[in-house]
């Protein structure tokens, strides 16, 4: 007999050991998420997937599914909370969407549309961050990194290369490259790596591919993220 939990009034089946996110994804119920990618161990850091479970605030991607769980996902209060969290991510980095090659196929942007986030009202932090164009095939724009650590996980767990790591603490937390110079070009990174194909935003981008798809015809220009899913899942690798 299969087990069920309830998300926004709908019964959703789940298997033992699954999280609420796993069950929702399998059932086609969209819970906004950024740091989650079903191919990797959950991370629980972006907090976009915050739901309430029997009234308690929990992150769906790291909370085990349970038979007595009554989950609220698509409520006004939770959507408002997500809009604030999204704004935090936008003001933490430097996101010039109109000038970004990922625009239209960026998950941060797509989740923001979905949640109804308009222009940020929070104070921009305008951090000073670098662009690393040292690698022949792939560039990193640290201004757009949202610290989801998907590249860290992919490089460590799939590629077995540990090309990426996290340094600093608190608001000073930042992504670093494991090489003598700290540059991607001097690391073991390769355009064929899994880590090159998991970034949900425009931080890790292939070079020599300027605006192949015109704006207006890109992934999330055609369909909302709630229907079409993660950008990483669309990558042919």
């Amino acid at each position: 007999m299969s087990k069920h939990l309830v998300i926004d009034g709908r019964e959703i089946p789940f298997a033992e050991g699954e999280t609420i996110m796993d069950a929702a994804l399998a059932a086609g119920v969209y819970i906004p998420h950024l740091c989650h990618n079903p191919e990797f161990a959950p991370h629980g850091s972006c907090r976009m997937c915050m739901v309430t479970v029997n009234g308690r605030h929990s992150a769906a991607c790291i909370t085990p599914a349970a038979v007595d769980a009554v989950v609220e996902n698509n409520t006004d209060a939770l959507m408002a909370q997500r809009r604030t969290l999204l704004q935090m991510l936008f003001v933490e980095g430097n996101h010039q969407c109109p000038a970004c090659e990922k625009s239209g196929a960026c998950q941060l942007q797509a989740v923001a549309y979905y949640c109804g986030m308009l222009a940020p009202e929070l104070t921009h932090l305008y951090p000073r961050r670098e662009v690393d164009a040292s690698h022949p095939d792939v560039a990193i724009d640290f201004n757009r990194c949202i610290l989801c650590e998907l590249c860290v996980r992919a490089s460590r767990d799939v590629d077995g290369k540990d090309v990426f790591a996290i340094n600093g603490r608190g608001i000073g937390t930042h992504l670093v490259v494991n090489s003598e110079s700290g540059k991607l070009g001097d690391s073991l990174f390769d355009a064929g790596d899994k880590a090159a194909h998991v970034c949900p935003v425009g931080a890790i981008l292939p070079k020599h591919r300027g605006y192949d798809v015109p704006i207006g015809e890109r992934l999330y220009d055609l369909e909302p993220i709630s229907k079409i899913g993660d950008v990483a899942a669309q990558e042919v690798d």
Partner: protein
Amino acid sequence: MTHHVSVKDVTADLLRQWEHDPYNLLQILIGVQQTFQHISTTAVDLIADKLSLPRASIEGVIGFYSFLHVQQRGLYDLLMSDNIVDQMSGSRELAGLLARRLDVKSGTTRADGAVSLGYTSCTGMGDQGPAALVNNRALTSLTPQRIEQIAELIEERVPLGEWPQELFAVSGNIQRRDLLLESDLLQGAAIDAVVSRGAEQILSELEESGLRGRGGAGFRTALKWRFCRDAAADERVVVCNADEGEPGTFKDRVLLQAYADRLFEGMALCAGVIGASRGFLYLRAEYFYLLEDLQQELQRRRDANLLGEDILGQAGFDFDIEIHLGAGAYICGEESALIESLEGKRGIPRIRPPFPVTEGYRGRPTVVNNVETLIAAAMIAVHGAEWFCSRGTDDSAGTKLLSISGDCARPGVYEYPYGVSIEAILRDCGARDVQAVQVAGPAGQCVPPSEFHRAIAFEDLSTGGSMMIFNQQRNLLNAVENFADFFVHESCGLCTPCRVGTTLLQKRLRKVVSGHATSEDLAMMRTIGSVVRESSHCGLGMTAANPILGSMEKFPGVYSEKLKSTGFEPAFDLDAALDEARKITGRDDAGAHIEGGGV
């Protein structure tokens, strides 16, 4: 401060001492830092090579902890404790004095490499501040005279070991003793209890006593131990949480200093009950000065067969304790971050479940308990549940150690039965004209006089022990700002709301303090604050907005008197910024002013 030894030799020695085990990375890095005042690329490369770790991960560990540096620090690395209570006793002025006297700017290292000066989070000396650290050694009761003396010692390059000992004197200041501190405990008696009466007997005694964790969360100790005992595993682990990072608390420091034998007794008792063979004491770096005494105490216990193999002659009862140091990170007091830190990593709170009782240190079932909890457990094993329940309330059995500091005549450690009122405490410690009491540190509550009848208890004002008193002359917003800064500094950075939200709150609060905020800013602080509270991953973030949200609710006056009357007010006042230009040019006509504007 031995500069003639080579980085390679020292690093190699440390690697050997820590058994070339990557799980001991943090301890190795601390050793390098203490010897050379920084961790050079030579050391990082050597460690990376020998432990087969990516160098970026090693640097990531260094970058996480406040007391580890890749940049060379001064030969004398001075950090002033920056808790609000230190500030109230003049720490900022003393730091300024020291900066002038040594000609070094705060936050920098002097060009000749002799001295670095900076601030650090509360060093746990609230009853004898202003306090500081010099190369990890605690300095207390600082005065302008002592600052002068310290400056001279530094300019003459006197080695720390030859500094006058009174500079490093740390007093116990136990002001009130009750059940725990008054009763005695014979060495080995608690271990004997588990050996002779068995684990089940001890567990039911603990259950009956109702003992709950003293570190903050108040989890039932018997239940925690039982979960761990019942978890299937070959090896289990006992960890004593001596990170005591909550600003304003210092009672664990006093226990470590005067009651270490009871603590180790409690850890061995726990080991006997749950079947653990390994124990760790995670000692915050600020208490480094206690390390040697604690090591000696451990050795005495090994010699007495109270640690080691076949403890008290019981075949197979093997248990020993290692001390690991922290390196300046409040988050490492959170039990899962503490375990990450014990494993040599960045102190990032884990995803739970699994909880430490089933998967803790290296995946082994692990009990993490506060210093005071472990001592109470040892005492209960010997004196019994009834003895323990003779104090306290129905939901909060026994007594609680409180660290009392701030505006009162007799700061120090007070042991009270649970249920004691704030009023009674204030009377005992000689506090007059009190405006507010901060209970449980920045993460706790700021209690106004109208609520001084409230009690210290799990069911009312729950606390790990910090209690800071503010009299009517204090500006409460200074305290709120200090706490907001603390959370910005101590957020681990994993999750969005705490990483970014604490900084956004700090910025808005500064707008209030500088008199530029409007009611819209307060509304925005409420919005950000509740998102941080509701969506953060761990207890740090969940409580980080408390100082702001709490004071807005309980002390609205301190905000309203700071507000501008208009709806929108820019954080940056363009017209005011032109003031200097007006003075220089001698103009004050309409054209020299800008109306409105700003961001």
